């Protein structure tokens, strides 16, 4: 989980401690480029392929985590 949080912090260009399940993505830079980077991050950390379109629907970090656990 830590590796994923660190990667996500880098993608959103925020401090690692900012990343918490309740963090609202739309308040950060959650754009098409961040989504592509996140697809790659999840593949790298969990070996799972989550589509960009399902990531687009995520409102919080917890939503992304739910997608990952559902795919595993």
């Amino acid at each position, binding site marked *: 989980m830590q590796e994923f949080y660190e990667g996500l912090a880098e993608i959103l260009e925020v401090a690692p401690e900012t990343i918490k399940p309740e963090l609202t993505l739309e308040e950060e830079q959650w754009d*098409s480029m961040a989504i592509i980077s996140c697809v790659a991050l999840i*593949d*790298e950390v969990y070996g799972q*392929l989550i*589509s*960009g379109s399902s*990531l687009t629907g995520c409102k919080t970090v917890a939503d992304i985590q739910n997608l990952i656990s559902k795919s595993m």
Partner: protein
Amino acid sequence: MSKNSVKGVTIQGVSCAVPRKQLDNQSFLDRFDEKTIADVAKLTGVLTRHIAEPGQTAGDLCFAAAERLLADLQWAPDSVDALIFVSQTPDQRMPATACILHGRLGLSTECQAFDVGLGCSGYVYGTWLAAALISAGLRRVLLLAGDTSSQMLDPDDRGTAMLFGDAGSATAFEYNEHAPLTYFELGTDGTGAQLLTVPAGGYRLCGPASARDNTLHMDGSAVFGFTISTVPPLIKSILQQANLTISDVDTFALHQANKFILQHIEKKLKIPAGALPINIEQFGNTSSASVPLLLCTNTAERITGSPTTLLMAGFGVGLSWGAAVFSDVRLQSTSVFEV
């Protein structure tokens, strides 16, 4: 996925021509702010690209590359048995650009010439066709692959406006009875046809089209997902077919889609440092010309020195993909120049 192997095929030389006009990232400051340009460049890796002048076509670039290659190899024009032109940006709707180039190059009337409408995977498909023609009895095949994607971009679409560059290439294939087997794997997923598209220009939309229909549309995250789910298994599978491992391959010449994708594939397959060259910084994504452009720049020394093992892979618009493995590769010549 179609898996094949072909005997007796060698690559003798590659030549690439890029337009003289160059655009660096600063040139986009009139459309995008510095932060957007930096963010896009971080993902794509592109710093500068060569852009065709209006009226300068993929056919023109390939013609220059072919003329140079025939001279370098001292191939008489009438010794070419087939000309294959691969592009998503042909010179005209008709005739086939291959026929126009056949005339310009002064090839024999016994030479067959035809177009293939593919982009990112096109060079590998062209290579497969050249190999298949040679295995069917031809001796010399010229593969011309090039695109002027810059001419179909929406200047305000940050996802594509700064990604592409233009280039044309020529590759000479020749029969050699001693050449080892060349392996191919090719595939298509037409359900993704609309993920990378220019709607106008064919006969679905007749009459004058809107500016929007005349420009390239790309669903970046879907194409990215397709690439990372398709390319690593493709590479693993063709290596298995060729009975090779990752460390047996000297050069992985992959379509220069985007630097982030290439580094992701490199990491995922644990490809040794230096074996997967990247030149997208200087040229952008040049569609069907990206693999030969890589062969003429970053790997030129390696493929003209002692015999080497080369894996090439292309993937993208279609959706379409392909990979080829050549062993004992030793080219007589490579060149890259501006026109």
